[in-house]
Each structure stands twice: as structure tokens, then as C-alpha cells.
């Protein structure tokens, strides 16, 4: 057993090699490329393999190239990277922790002389040790830092202060967050799913088509449905759907808006408006406005008008295509046993605007010929067609089905947390530097040194400015106090 642990320890140390980590990073970068060139399975590409010849298809199937990012090799790579992150981080931790938290040590004269020239400054003062110490501490505190007196003698002292030391270990936040994101992704791919459903305007659906399903989404298969059809466990009703277009830009959509009700056992549990970028949550489902399409159906708003007294006798109706109107019920004069049925409609007939085709029926037999009525030219129907009544169209609205995307992403809270950590960590690790300052006083001579853990050249100007300020406050007397 100890042999095994020893062996594991050796492997662990080997794994913690930075060189191997760099190689892995390059490999991840390179192996992310094929999936961007070869088409991948997703909702719109049902079988990307169709594009290629058999030999390539066979090869790609073996290597799982059509699902590159979920293939065994990519997943193995992510696992390897995760192990690598843990191994390298663990190995470096004591060192990094020490850099961040080590007790500062006073610098001797030689150590100061070894510092780069641009980062050390020297000046003399005639003031006493206590005055200089007081001035230095005050100046440091003014810059929001906490000064630390490292040593103090009868005519000497050394003050130390620092900033940004936690940036030394900010990379641990970055790497932990990356692992958290991987974990969130894993949860999502195991328990999440993605699908879609088309609901006709005014219709409803109990089930949707699954496109991507994890190991256990816990959803029931729709009885008698398609192989990948799943039950919501509730009913989604689209009470209205509307496409709005920009006025001056023909064909450029402005908004897709669905009014959706969620029903359970006939009761409305939730209702709301779905737009692109504005999804709706119910239980663990999220519904997104994704697409739409024509239903070949129209809502028609019309008036039946007595031709002799056109303004006194009007009947308003809203009907769908194929929905009969009993003329006798509207007005007995219009016909005793006739049915008026809108049979076809178009949003634009030969540039004359919207129109509806009607047919009169007696019993189940058509009576007469079908006729078109145009919304923009009502007199056309009044003058051309015989009979007691005329039809005025007030609105011809094409009906669409709404395409909703259905998804559940249980890993989301985990990976969003990871993303937040990644952001904070990256900004902290890369924007903040660990700066340490030493001010040494000995018998009227002052040495000031700044150190930084990266970008030393750019730091020189800052250190010079700081030295200038310290020099001013430690050499001149305060105003109004004259040396006696």
C-alpha cells in the first residue's frame, strides 16, 4: 500500500511539471480548431455527415469529429487540464503563500545597493530621526498604506510598506474558478437539456422535441409521439403571436412577441410575454422566443352590410379561415339557409393589398362561384356582386406559429459563480502588482527602495515621484516652526 502511495506521489510530482502544462495548453488550443471547421451536430445541422464522402464520414465517426467538443479526446483533455491545474497549484502554493504573507525583512546597505538603479533613491536630511520617522509614517498613511517599522536604533530606523500583495495568489482564484466552470458545465451536460416546440397561434402543446439531452433529465417520453418527444408535465399555450417589422425597412423584423400561458390541470399557473432576449422561467424550464413560421391561416375581421341601408345594419365579426357564418342569424334578409365561408386569404394580392376569398354554401353544396374581397377596395364587392349584402374587411391578419426553444441548465448557477470568480481573479491578478517599499534612515542619510514583481521599467517613474514627495516632507521644516 505504501508502495502505491509512493508511486502516486511520484506521478503527482511529474504531473506538476510546468512544461507539461504548457504543452497541454497548446494542445487544447490546437484541438479546439477542428470542431470549428467540420460541421457539428446541433439543432440546425441534423446530420453534418451528409456533406462528406463515406471514407471521411467513417473516419470522423470513429474520432467523434462531428461532436468534437463532447468527444472522448476533448473531454480527456479537459480532465487532464483540470488535474494539471490542481497539481501545479498545489506544488506552487507554499511558495506563493510565502511571497504574499512573508514577514518583511529589513534591507542592509549592500542589499539596497544591489537593487536596480531606477528603483532606489538616496538623499540627505538635517532633521532628527524622530521628525523624519514621524513625517514618513504620516506620508505613508496619507497614501492609504500601513507602515511597519522594521528596526529602530538611536539614530536609525527602517520603515516598510506594501500594496497589492494578494495579487500574488489571485491566480488561485482564477484557477479555482476555471475548475468551477468545468464543474458547472459537467452538471449542465449531465442533467440539462435543450429542445424546441412550435405552437400555432392560439394553440397549445404538452410536449416538445428534444435535441440535446443529458444522462437524466427526468422527463417522460410523450406517449404515441416521436422518439425524441418529451412531456413538459404542463401545458404551454400561445394565446397570441405577432411579428413587427420596421416601417422604413421592408422585411427587417423589429420584434417577435408571443403571449404565453402555462396551464396545469386547466388552471393558468403563469402567463407572460416572450420576446427575443426576454425568456420566461417556469419550474426548471426556460422558454425562449426562437423562431416563427407561417401557419397558412388568417384571422379575418369583417362587417356584413345591408346594401340598401349600408350604415344602419352592420354586423361585426371576427372569423378564422373555414369558419362558417350563418347569414340568416345575421339578418334574415341576407339568405335563409346560406352559409358564408372565408376559404382563402392572402396578405397581398397582386399589389392590391390584403384580400379574402369567400364561398357561399347551401347545406354542404357550394352555391355560386367563390369570390375575392379586397380590404382596400370595398366598393369592388358592393358593385360587382349580386345579392342583398356586401362585405367590408376591417383586418386580415396572417397567423404564425411561434417557435420556442426549451432548455434547462441546472449547472448555470455553478458556472456563473465560476465566471464571476474568473473575472475578479483575472483583473486582480493582471491589473494589480505587488509593490514593496523600504525607507532606511541612518544618521541623516535616507535610502528609499521600491520593488515590484513585474513591469519594473514602468514602475521607475512612479517610484521617482514617490521619492520626490518623501524627500520634500523629510527634508523641509514645517511652515511656521523655525529651528532654534
Amino acid at each position, binding site marked *: 500500500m505504501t508502495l502505491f502511495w509512493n508511486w502516486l506521489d511520484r506521478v503527482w510530482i511529474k504531473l506538476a511539471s510546468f512544461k507539461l502544462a*504548457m504543452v497541454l495548453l497548446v494542445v487544447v488550443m490546437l484541438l*479546439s480548431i477542428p*470542431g470549428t*471547421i467540420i460541421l457539428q451536430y446541433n439543432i440546425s445541422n441534423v446530420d453534418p455527415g451528409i456533406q462528406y464522402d463515406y471514407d471521411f464520414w467513417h473516419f470522423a465517426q470513429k474520432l467523434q469529429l462531428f461532436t*468534437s467538443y463532447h468527444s472522448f479526446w476533448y473531454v480527456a483533455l479537459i480532465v487532464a487540464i483540470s488535474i494539471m491545474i490542481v497539481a501545479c497549484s498545489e506544488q506552487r502554493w507554499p511558495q506563493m503563500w510565502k511571497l504574499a504573507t512573508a514577514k518583511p525583512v529589513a534591507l542592509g546597505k549592500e542589499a539596497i545597493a544591489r537593487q536596480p538603479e531606477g528603483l532606489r533613491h538616496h538623499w540627505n536630511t538635517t532633521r532628527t530621526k524622530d521628525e523624519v520617522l514621524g513625517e514618513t509614517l504620516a506620508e505613508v498613511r496619507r497614501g492609504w498604506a500601513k507602515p511597519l517599522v522594521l528596526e529602530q536604533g538611536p539614530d536609525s530606523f527602517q520603515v516598510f510598506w506594501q500594496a497589492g500583495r494578494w495579487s500574488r495568489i489571485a491566480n488561485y482564484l482564477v484557477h479555482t474558478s476555471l475548475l468551477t466552470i468545468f464543474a458547472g*458545465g459537467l452538471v449542465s451536460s449531465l442533467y440539462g437539456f435543450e429542445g424546441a416546440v412550435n405552437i400555432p397561434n392560439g394553440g397549445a402543446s404538452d410536449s416538445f422535441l428534444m435535441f440535446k439531452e443529458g444522462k437524466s433529465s427526468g422527463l417522460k417520453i410523450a406517449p404515441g409521439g416521436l422518439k425524441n418527444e418529451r412531456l413538459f408535465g404542463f401545458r404551454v399555450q400561445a394565446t397570441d403571436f405577432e411579428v413587427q417589422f420596421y416601417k422604413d425597412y421592408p422585411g*427587417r423584423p*423589429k420584434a417577435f412577441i408571443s403571449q404565453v400561458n402555462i396551464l396545469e390541470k386547466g388552471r393558468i399557473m403563469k402567463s407572460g410575454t416572450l420576446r427575443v*432576449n426576454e425568456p420566461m422561467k417556469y419550474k426548471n424550464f426556460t422558454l425562449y422566443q426562437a423562431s416563427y413560421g407561417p401557419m397558412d391561416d388568417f384571422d379575418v375581421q369583417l362587417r356584413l352590410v345591408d346594401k340598401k341601408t349600408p350604415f344602419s345594419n352592420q354586423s361585426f365579426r371576427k372569423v378564422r379561415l373555414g369558419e362558417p357564418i350563418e347569414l340568416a342569424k345575421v339578418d334574415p334578409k341576407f339568405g335563409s339557409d346560406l352559409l358564408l365561408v372565408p376559404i382563402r386569404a392572402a396578405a397581398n394580392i397582386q399589389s392590391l393589398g390584403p384580400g379574402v376569398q369567400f364561398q357561399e354554401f347551401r347545406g354542404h353544396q357550394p352555391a355560386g362561384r367563390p369570390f375575392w374581397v379586397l380590404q382596400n377596395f370595398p366598393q369592388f364587392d358592393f358593385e360587382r356582386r349580386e345579392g342583398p349584402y356586401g362585405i367590408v374587411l376591417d383586418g386580415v391578419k396572417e397567423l404564425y406559429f411561434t417557435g420556442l426553444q426549451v432548455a434547462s441548465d441546472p449547472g448555470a448557477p455553478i458556472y456563473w459563480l465560476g465566471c464571476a470568480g474568473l473575472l475578479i481573479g483575472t483583473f486582480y491578478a493582471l491589473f494589480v502588482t505587488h509593490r514593496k517599499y523600504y525607507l532606511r534612515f541612518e544618521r541623516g542619510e535616507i535610502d528609499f527602495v521600491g520593488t515590484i514583481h513585474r*513591469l519594473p521599467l514602468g514602475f521607475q517613474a512612479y517610484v521617482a515621484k514617490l521619492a520626490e514627495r518623501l524627500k520634500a516632507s523629510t527634508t523641509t521644516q514645517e511652515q511656521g516652526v523655525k529651528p532654534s
Partner: protein
Amino acid sequence: MTLFDWAVRLMNTSAFVYLAACFFYIFAIASSKKTTSEFWSRTGMISVLTGFAMHTGALGMRWYIGGISRPPWTNLYESLVFFAWGVVLFQMYTQFKWKLRLAGVVGMPLVFILMGMSVMTPNKGVEPLIPALQSYWLKIHVVFGMLAYAGFTTAACIAFLQLMRNGVSLSKIGAGIALMACFNLAISGGKESFKTGHFYMAKTAWVVGGDGHRVQAKDTYREYEGGPVITRMEEVPNANIAFFGSFALFAAAAAVFIWGRRRPTGATASLTQNPSVEEAARRGYDLSALPFGLFVGGLAAMVGLFVVIGNGIQHSQTLTLHSNPYLTMLLLMTFFFATAFAVITRRYRSFLSVLPSAERLDELSYVNILFAFPFQTLLLITGAIWAFYAWGRSWGWDPKETWALITWLAFLIYLHGKLLMRWKPNLLSAVAIVGFVILVFAFLGVNMVLSGLHSYGAA
């Protein structure tokens, strides 16, 4: 003229002001007298400032036209222009704050390329947003992308100067530029040219644009409904000699540069990390006459190609430059970099003497990457959040997303190389430049070559 026309005209003018700046910077390195050189680099700076003022004004006008909720970075045209704006911003910071005037030699041709492509983009309209883009994430996502990409671009420009200042063999750099020239020429000519031995360009036709007006655009068709879009090509008469000549000369130059390298005179065996100008100049100058002659020959043939293309356009109804934006800009970019290289080799020592130390250049390149990397992270994360609200998934491995991730990984390798492995500055500079090439592919190549969701509206 409407405000919109003014905005377009102003933007186009700024592109040509940047073009002038490119020439001024080349004059600056070409002139042997210090005062003349100073004069030209100052003139270059003034034109960059002028161009930037126009550029900013034009962007502001577009924002005013589109309204507060439609920022001027929502389609292909605006992406090009906005990204170029960011690069100029970083250029100016580099030149004022760090006194690195010569960053313009590398940076301004890149800016001009982006602006030139925007000039040739047919659809410049301030169109209202389609539903998917109506999100406040659009506004910040693109801004972070601009900051990251502009930072990385500037880092790569400075990395190139670092390589020069550190005394990297001029022959190697020359070979690199000659290979880039071959690559750009190959893309410009395309498969057809190499198959048939003639030089082709995309044909232009009058088409009805989105707003009902007839505009000149690339002549395209589909063989069947839903099939791939195919461009009709037109042969440019007499261009084949110049085209293939230029290609062959550059290819030969690249090969001879590498294999016919002269041993630099008086170079010390031990390489110091932060060489003086003298040392760097001695170490780097290893050019021999033959490859340099071939290189200049390739450049001359390229100028010949420009003349022939110009002639072809004058005599044809259906040949225009603006139907061939990528070709035009690739050729111009090659021309600028090849010319700059040829000039630099003649004024090598004085060019090196105006640059700060290699160590300083390495640090400046590093600072840009330190700045840009967190914004690239933000780009990825805000993109994921937006996708989560719009499409119901946060990460879908769409080519655009994946290439942004690959860019992120490239600079991640840079950072680990710097922090963990303590790589030498030259290797780091090479990584930064490779990262920049990947970035260019992620920004433009993906949309040209691969299909995906980021089609920049209806571009």
C-alpha cells in the same frame, strides 16, 4: 446631403488621412537626416490625430442618427470601423504616453486596412436592430471586444519592434514578410488563378439594395435555391505576368533569405539579453544581396500588378476595386509592410536608435497584453450571458465563440510563458504575433470562411 451621407463621407475621408499617415511614417524612417525624420514622424502623428477626430465625429454622427439605444457597432461595416477606432486610440496612447512614435509604422497600415475594407463595404446603413441584437449586452460585449482586440493588436505591433530592437536576424524577418506576401497574394488570386494561369477578380453588377436603390456590388448567384453563394469572376487582362512574377519572386526571396544568410560581421558569440543599438545592428544585419534583390523585385512586380489592375479597371465596365475589398486590402497591406521592411534595412541603425531598449519594448508589449487579457475574458463571459438570454445556452461551440476562446488561449500561453516559464523576450514576442494572427482570423476570417451565428446582422 443628409447627416448620414456626411457621416459616411467623413469616415471615408478619415481612412485616406490614415493612409497618408502610413506614408509619412515610411518617410520618417527613410530620411537620413534626424530633423527631417522628426518632421515626418510629427506629420504622421498630426494626420493620425486629424483622422481620429474625423473618425470619432463620424461615429458620433452615426450614434446620433441611430438613437441612444443603437450604438454604432452593430454590423460588419461598423465593427470594422469601431475596431479600427480602438486600435488608433491605443496607437495614440502608445505614441504620447510612451513616446513610441514608430509604433505607427506597424500599426497604421493595420488601421488603414480595416478602414479601407469599411470604405468598400457596400452596406453602410444605420439600420435598426433585429430582435436578437436588441440587448444591452450587445453594447458592452462589443466594447469589451474592442478593448481586448485593440490591446492585443498594439501588443503585437510593439512585439514586432522588440524583435527588431533585440537584433533578430533581418533575413528571418524578411523571410517572414516575404512568406506573408506569398500568402496574401495566394488568397488574392485564389484557386482559379493557380489552376488557369490567369489573374481573376470578382465581377461587379448593379443590384437592388435593401432600401430599394440600385447599388454596385459583387456579382453573385446561387446554382440552386439554398445553395452556396458563388461569385462571378472576371479575368484581368495581362495581369498574370505581374501576379505570378511577384508571387515567384517573393517565394524565392523567402527561401534564399533563410538558406543564403550571411554571417553577420563582428557578431559576438554570446548573446546579451538587452543589447545596445550597435550590438543589435551588428547581430541583426545578415542580409545578402541576392535575396534582398529578389524581395525588391517582388515588390516592383507588385507595383506593376497595381498598374495592370488599374488599367484593367479603366477598360472594363464590370471591374471595380470595391467588389474586391479583401484582395485590395491584402495587396496594399503587403505593399506597405514590404516597403517598410525594404526601407528599414537601408536605415537599419538609425531605425534602431530611435527605439527604446528591447527590455522596455518587451515590457510595453506585456503591459498591453496584461490590459487586454481581462477584457478578452469579459468578452467571452458577456457573450455567454447574452447567448444565455437570447438562445437558451451559454456556450454552444459556435465557430466565432470557439475562435474567441482560441485567441484567449493563445494569450494565456503568453502569460504563462512570461510568469511561469520565464521565456525569453523573443519567444514571447513571437507568441504575441501568432496570437494576433489568430485574433485576425477570429475577428474577420471566421466570418469569411466559416459559417456561424455571428453574421454581423445582414452583412
